[in-house]
């Protein structure tokens, strides 16, 4: 079957690579911290949040975890800072974080 995604790293040699760099399992984006690409960061203001859950399905990177019918803190390892959640929130409970 070939290599597991978690076994693939930057020291890999050509003999060990999968054919055509194929990846033989799903959900491997969890292993890649795409949040590093972010230039601006959304911030969740818990006090204003009504838990309407409109933000979560709008997030293109599934970086708003929902558990037991409630959203939780952003997954900043994968949030790319697109700001769609800020637009989606009817209660201004998400805003851009002030950067230094």
């Amino acid at each position: 079957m070939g290599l597991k995604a978690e076994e693939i790293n930057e020291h890999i040699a050509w003999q060990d690579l999968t054919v055509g760099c194929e990846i033989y399992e799903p959900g491997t984006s969890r292993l890649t911290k795409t949040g590093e690409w972010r230039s601006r960061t959304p911030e969740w203001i818990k006090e204003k949040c009504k838990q309407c859950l409109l933000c979560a399905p709008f997030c293109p990177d599934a970086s708003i975890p929902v558990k037991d019918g409630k959203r939780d803190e952003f997954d900043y390892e994968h949030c790319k800072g697109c700001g769609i959640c800020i637009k989606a929130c009817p209660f201004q409970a998400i805003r851009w974080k002030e950067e230094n």
Partner: protein
Amino acid sequence: MSIRERLSGNEAIATAMRQINPDVFAMFPITPSTEIPQYFAQYVADGKVDTEFICVESEHSSLSACLGAEAAGCRAVTATSSAGLSFMNEVLYVAASSRLPVVLAVACRALTGPININHDYSDSMAERDSGFIQIYGENNQEVYDNYLMAHRIAEHPDVRLPLMVCEDGFITSHAIENIELEEDEAVKKFVGEYHPENYLLKAENPLAVGPYGISAYYMEARVAQAHAMMNAKKVILDVAADFEKTFGRKYGLIEEYKISDPSPEKRSPRL
């Protein structure tokens, strides 16, 4: 038993395609390769194949459709010439690096400048380093035979590279010659069915094809691809040996012409 016929190179390729009955043919017409999908469309209309015949809007799209089909686990083919092959350029590299063994029939034709529809190799030679294996046939018989060997070479696990079956535009593609065809069942048995180990439609094994490869992976992947091309040398000879055993016509890596005796008096005069 072989069947004596007289066919053009394009019809010979279309006949080989009919006998192989690929899963997908994504077509876009360009002279002089147009007859290949034209003949094949008739086979589709007549129910002689059950190929998914897709008429797309460009050569970039025809090869892209083939890639999608190959990744899904299908055997996919197309045909093109000249500017059509140049327009495929980007996708040729994707096919090769994704190691998807599409078989592409090329009726070689001059690229524009001055505009010309006749034969030279400026289209296929420009793609020499694209990662496609290229097999050139000198006449209709060789083109037909090369096509019968093409899928087995391209799909071999040690190779898994896309492949061009090249013929000379008009000189081969349109000229009608005597040819020995093989029986449909014998061809099907020789070529075999395509059963890739991993493919997108294999539900129990989710697969990602063509992922992003940063520098650390890029060169390793390129070396792996180069080795696949080197492996092709042996696979081509193995398939050719089986072809000779099965159908009686012998092929090697190159056809020699007066190279065994390089004595000066037998050499061609210098121009």
